[in-house]
């Protein structure tokens, strides 16, 4: 009602204009128009503010709680778009909707090798590690909901939407934020906090794809359904200690159909500032799982592709560090990030050769392997919206002891490696375009030249700037 009066007043003013305009120049006219526009805007803004206050007063009256308690917590979504003046109690039903974020991603990939035959010599990851399909495709898009559940728990749900129209629950967890003594427990499905990159969603990575050790040792990223407990030390130096238990069904584990705990992880991270311009974080993590019948295909000495099955213990240790530099800590214009991680894995147990008996009787014998890998990347922001980066990944096939099965299987002595460079443009906090080239040599005598042109768009709630 009051707004329409404001508009009417503005139009009435506008109606008076022509008689003055007879003598006025174009510039004057433009100025008057601008003034009226300003007037109208300020009028509308004021009415808006009044409406908001009215709404607040109504809400307060309805719940009769003190103002401090009804004020929205800072972590929730931006307040909803202005509602119509006829706001009643019923229109407040969605006032507690969680913050919604959608991440749209897409890529154009030009690959010199067939991505459906993607494999890393000497390593047997499963999971979604192949680069994008050739040509255009939407990459992993995401839909996330988050909110404070109550005064003690925060909840987060993230779906990942794949190009093949499948939907996966990427994360679905609750987290206690208000426990004393610096204890932060998380429960449900979550990306494990081992390493540095593991708990970061793909759209915040510095490169389009995961580093090779993540692909080889964790099948991309490690997540489990379970419980995490983190403790932050009350020191000026950042010290974080955490432990996780879970079902351990994702690679390198398997679904075990057993009661109890399938995976366990412990980690420690330390971090802090070095002067005003630098910040660092370093950590050590250990993950242990008990895969039971983890199956994969391997080529034997006769050239047959044979189904293998591994049961036993898989132990992974990760050392990680990241160092970020920006002049005076202001990363808006210039910044440099250096990050690297080193992975060691030891697997011991039994390997069943030709598990489905396709080439004769199956044969089970002891198996043990020691393998490692690392990557190092650096990203330099040279203008507010522009960054360049380079990355080097390398895996060491290490030693694999096939026991009695050694007569069928040869030791791999090739060390896969990859060189990547990227260049990206970030016009706003909510969009990014990236060009990436990499040369990967994952198998003897095979070089894959890969080009990716990628976009990342963020809709909805303002995302967090994770370190």
């Amino acid at each position, binding site marked *: 009602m009051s707004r329409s009066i404001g508009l009417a007043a503005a139009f009435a003013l506008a109606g008076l204009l022509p008689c003055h305009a007879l003598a006025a120049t174009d510039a004057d006219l433009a100025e008057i128009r601008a003034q009226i526009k300003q007037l109208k805007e300020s009028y509308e803004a004021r009415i808006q503010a009044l409406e908001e206050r009215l709404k607040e007063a109504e809400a307060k009256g309805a719940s009769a709680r003190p103002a*401090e308690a009804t004020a929205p917590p800072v972590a929730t979504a931006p307040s909803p778009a202005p509602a119509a003046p006829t706001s009643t109690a019923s229109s407040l039903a969605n006032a507690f909707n969680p913050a919604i974020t959608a991440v749209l991603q897409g890529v154009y990939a030009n690959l010199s090798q067939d991505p459906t035959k993607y494999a890393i010599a000497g390593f047997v990851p499963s999971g979604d590690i192949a680069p994008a399909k050739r040509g255009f495709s939407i990459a992993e898009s995401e839909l996330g909901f988050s909110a404070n559940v109550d*005064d003690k728990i925060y909840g987060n749900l993230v779906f990942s939407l794949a190009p093949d129209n499948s939907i996966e629950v990427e994360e679905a967890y609750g987290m206690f934020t*208000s426990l004393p003594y610096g204890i932060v427990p998380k429960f449900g499905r979550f990306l494990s906090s081992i390493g540095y990159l593991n708990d970061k969603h793909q759209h915040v990575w510095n490169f389009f794809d995961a580093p090779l050790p993540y692909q080889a040792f964790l099948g991309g990223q490690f997540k489990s359904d379970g419980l995490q407990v983190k403790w932050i030390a009350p020191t000026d130096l950042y010290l*974080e200690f955490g432990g996780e238990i879970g079902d351990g069904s994702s690679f390198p584990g398997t679904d075990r159909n057993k009661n109890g705990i399938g995976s366990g992880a412990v980690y420690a991270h330390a971090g802090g500032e070095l002067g005003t311009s630098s910040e660092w974080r370093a950590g050590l993590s250990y993950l242990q799982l008990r895969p039971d019948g983890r199956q994969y295909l391997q080529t034997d000495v006769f050239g047959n592709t044979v189904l293998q099955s591994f049961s036993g213990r898989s132990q992974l240790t990760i050392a990680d560090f990241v160092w970020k530099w920006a002049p005076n800590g202001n990363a808006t*214009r210039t910044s440099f990030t250096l990050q690297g991680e080193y992975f060691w894995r030891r697997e011991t147990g039994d390997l069943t050769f030709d598990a489905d008996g396709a080439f004769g009787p199956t044969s089970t014998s002891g198996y043990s392997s020691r393998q490692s890998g690392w990557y190092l990347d650096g990203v330099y922001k040279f203008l507010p919206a522009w960054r360049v980066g380079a990355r080097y990944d390398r895996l060491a096939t290490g030693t694999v002891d096939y026991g009695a099965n050694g007569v069928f299987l040869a030791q791999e002595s090739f060390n896969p490696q990859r060189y990547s460079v990227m260049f990206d443009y970030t016009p706003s906090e909510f969009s990014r375009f990236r060009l990436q080239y990499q040369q990967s040599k994952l198998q003897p005598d095979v070089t894959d030249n890969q080009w990716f042109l990628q976009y990342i768009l963020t809709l909805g709630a303002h995302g967090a700037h994770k370190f």
Partner: protein
Amino acid sequence: MISSLKILAATLLAALAAPALAALNIFATMPEWGALTEELGGDKVKIYTATNALQDAHHVEAKPSLIARARSADLVIATGAELEIGWLPLVIQQAGNPKIQPGKPGYFEATRYVTLLEKPVRLDRAEGDVHPGGNPHIQTDARNIGKVAGPLAAKLAELDPDNAAFYQARYKAFAEKWNAAVARWEKQAAPLRGTPIIVQHKAFTYLEAWLGLNQVAALEPKPGVEPTTAHLTEVLATLQRTPVKMVIRAAYQSDRASQWIAERAKINAVMLPFTVGGDAEAKDLYSLYDDTIARLLKGAQ
């Protein structure tokens, strides 16, 4: 090995014992709130300021050092109005400190005690990085510091009742001194009333409203979007129709765009400290506004 463990244990113990000595651990997101708390709390508070004046408060990351400091804070003093949306919620969530969660007594938002300007009529990211609650850069109007001081002193007294009288007395002394200073600044800045200016980022809304400056244009095409050549050319054309005295930018921003326009439009490029520590002169809250007004007066000549 054992001796290093001992050292670690001793460090942990010392760290655990330390908070008991200082009365209140304050985590201030912005230098102005750190400085204000110092005025009100004196030696009864231990202040950690999360950002400095040369950082863009919109683009801070939830750094490990911030999480560590938030872990043992008794009180978080934030600007609010989503200025710290990109990092503070995450820092608070990760810190494992029940005292400082939003809604708890240990969480204080300054913008709650100030009438916000520029509440967007249209909430759309096509308008740039707009803040739904209104413009959060309230510290550019000295009167807002005075408005926040009262509730902040009450908050300190609430969290540290033993020293309530101390905070109240300091607040009274501060308010008196501050009001006198505001009157002095207003008198000094009287010649600035009506001065046409352009700004780099829409960060000076409250300053303009306070001192009666007339903002003609902004160098950023949309809030938070870097100035483009096309937009700067447009601004230049506007300046030919509506001449201005100066272009204003905050200390944390690059001077490129404002130098570009200053050279072509033959106007003064003025850097304002924006908050405590923004330049060598702005050492505390008083010198912040002394310096701001001195620079504006110089720019308006």
